[in-house]
């Protein structure tokens, strides 16, 4: 177990990556063999993510550095330069994101086994699925900006392939092209920013770069490129237009994993803002840029969801609006952090954390909502796949009466919907309540928009539920039924997460959310110190 924990950062990337290349070959031996292999891989990956989380959270979320091969990392070497090595740096935030990815990948893979049972192309599908998984983990665990770009590109290629997977549908092809082009644009901006930073500071390692960045003109241009590129890939309004196309046209289990992919970009953005640039750069403007983008994302996302009659696009716009809540939570935290530093200095952040300042609470809310959103949106996308398969249409205007014969699917959909809308006692409420309370203290206007949009989101899902599940029995719904156990189990697992995290939010906030939030709030110095020693 110790060896597994030690090598977990690289295994989390290498195992799904090898699985991605093995899937088409093993698939030649039969679907059962291939599914067994994929199942073992995702189970192993989930175990590794859990072990890593236990290890990191056990140490209070403090960053640990892993050198490829598991060698003992020492610094400085002779010459005082960072060596050419592949370094992973894992702190509370990375471990937290790893848990989210593991949850979605595990449930998504199990759901996919049944979902692709009667379709061809499963070998390629699972190959891309595992490639996307490897890329997401890589983005979350790497301690190097260039490697971050490489993993970002891996996710882009895999995601575009999955979105456009159903090549026999012209909408799918179009969505795949749009995703590929937009992700490439995002990747190019990130690469340009990394090039600027490398030219300016001569480093690619995040910790050494963070130690050198001083907020000069080139640094700020690089920051703008990184912020915009990653916010676009996360689906922030007004750069979100690709997201409903992608989530809407991708196969249902893929849509859930694409949400985890968007969250990985959001993680990258938070890592850049708090760790790479961190306390040394004027963060007040950054915080407010994030808040403005967040408000736009929340409100436009939810109001666009309200007028959709395509079930998957409706959920997709709902998912876009939830990205806004995460950005709002973290944006308020960033703005508050800047004001504390401006008034009392960097050392005051520690006191503020002890006194549970609303900036830290806001960060906790935003980060906790990432996990809750993944579970709720994942569940809704899974349910949408079941609904669309049963009714033969994505058009809510042509659905109705499914609840008579799909009791469990309707219950699961309802739980996912009310949880995402922030209705107590489900998990979405717990994280949104933290965001409401903290953002109110920065400006009541922020909380008003957040609460109003949650109410609108509830209205959105009332519409979807009533259109799909309610209404009289008809001939068209006479033959439908709940899906096979293979699809029910992943949905039930996500329902369990939603209920448990909703009923006992205090436990999870204390043990996994707070270390993640503190890794951003206080972790700038510790992240650098883990690589460069006692700086």
């Amino acid at each position: 177990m110790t060896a597994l924990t030690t090598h977990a950062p690289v295994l989390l990337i290498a195992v799904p990556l090898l699985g991605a290349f093995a899937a088409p070959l093993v698939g030649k031996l039969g679907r059962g063999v291939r599914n067994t292999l994929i199942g073992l891989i995702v189970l192993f990956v989930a175990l590794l993510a859990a072990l890593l989380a236990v290890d990191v959270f056990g140490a209070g979320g403090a960053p640990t550095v892993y050198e490829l091969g598991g060698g003992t990392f020492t610094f400085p070497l002779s010459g005082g330069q960072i060596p050419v090595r592949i370094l992973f740096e894992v702190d509370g935030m990375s471990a937290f994101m790893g848990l989210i990815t593991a949850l979605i990948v595990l449930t998504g893979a199990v759901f996919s086994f049944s979902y692709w049972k009667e379709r061809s192309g499963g070998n390629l599908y699972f190959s891309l699925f595992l490639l996307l998984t490897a890329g997401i983990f890589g983005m979350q665990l790497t301690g190097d900006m260039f490697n971050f770009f490489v993993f970002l590109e891996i996710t882009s290629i895999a995601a575009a392939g999955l979105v456009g997977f159903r090549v026999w549908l012209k909408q799918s092809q179009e969505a795949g092209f749009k995703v590929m082009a937009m992700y490439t644009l995002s990747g190019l901006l990130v690469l340009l920013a990394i090039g600027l930073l490398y030219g300016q500071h001569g480093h690619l390692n995040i910790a050494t770069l963070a130690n050198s960045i001083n907020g000069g003109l080139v640094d700020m241009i690089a920051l703008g490129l990184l912020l915009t590129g990653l916010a676009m890939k996360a689906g922030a309004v007004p750069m979100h237009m690709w997201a409903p196309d992608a989530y809407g046209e991708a196969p249902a289990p893929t849509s859930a994993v694409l949400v985890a992919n968007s969250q990985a970009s959001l993680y990258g953005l938070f890592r850049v803002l708090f760790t790479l640039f961190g306390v040394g750069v004027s963060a007040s403007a950054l915080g407010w840029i994030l808040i403005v983008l967040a408000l736009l994302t929340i409100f436009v996302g939810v109001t666009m969801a309200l007028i959709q009659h395509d079930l998957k696009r409706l959920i997709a716009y709902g998912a876009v609006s939830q990205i806004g809540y995460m950005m709002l939570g973290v944006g308020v935290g960033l703005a508050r952090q800047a004001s504390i530093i401006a008034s009392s200095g960097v050392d005051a952040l520690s006191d503020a954390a002890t006194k549970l300042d609303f900036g830290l609470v806001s960060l906790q809310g935003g980060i906790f909502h990432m996990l809750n959103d993944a579970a709720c949106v994942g569940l809704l996308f899974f349910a949408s796949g079941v609904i669309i398969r049963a009714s033969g249409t994505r058009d809510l205007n042509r659905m109705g009466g499914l609840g008579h014969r799909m009791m469990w699917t309707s219950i699961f959909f309802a739980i996912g919907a009310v949880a995402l809308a922030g209705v107590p006692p489900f998990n979405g409420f717990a994280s949104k309540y933290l965001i409401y309370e903290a953002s109110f203290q920065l400006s009541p206007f922020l909380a008003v928009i957040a609460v109003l949009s949650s109410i609108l989101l509830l209205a959105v899902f009332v519409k979807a539920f009533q259109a799909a599940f309610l209404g009289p029995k008809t001939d068209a719904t006479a033959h439908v039924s709940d899906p096979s156990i293979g699809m029910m189990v992943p949905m039930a697992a996500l329902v369990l997460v939603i209920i448990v995290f909703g009923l006992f939010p205090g436990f999870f906030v204390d043990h996994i959310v707070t270390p993640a939030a503190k890794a951003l709030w206080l972790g700038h110095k510790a992240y650098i110190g883990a690589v460069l020693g006692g700086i």
Partner: protein
Amino acid sequence: MNGLTSGFGAWNPIAWALLFVGILVVSFIVRARGNKSYKRGSGQTKVFLSGNEEPADADSLHVRGDHLYWGMIDGLSAYYRRVKAWHTGIFSDYVAWFVGVLAVVIVILVWVG
């Protein structure tokens, strides 16, 4: 909970869970005390539509997705005209928004920073 500065108060999730369970129990009791002597398939189980005859086609009884909030959406038509105009579905428009945001963000950061 190590997060809320004001505590959960009335929003305690356990209290809400108990409330939901209580509502379910009360609903079950009310249902169990209902009249069991009705005749299924007779006029007693017909849908009441303000005294109008129930349409023969069951489909026409269902309020479809787009009809549920038509009043509210109509009231917000000025907003929706503008927001829908952004969402052209044309790729070059996606890029234009992206470039616009990039320019604004860099100007703000360089100006403030």
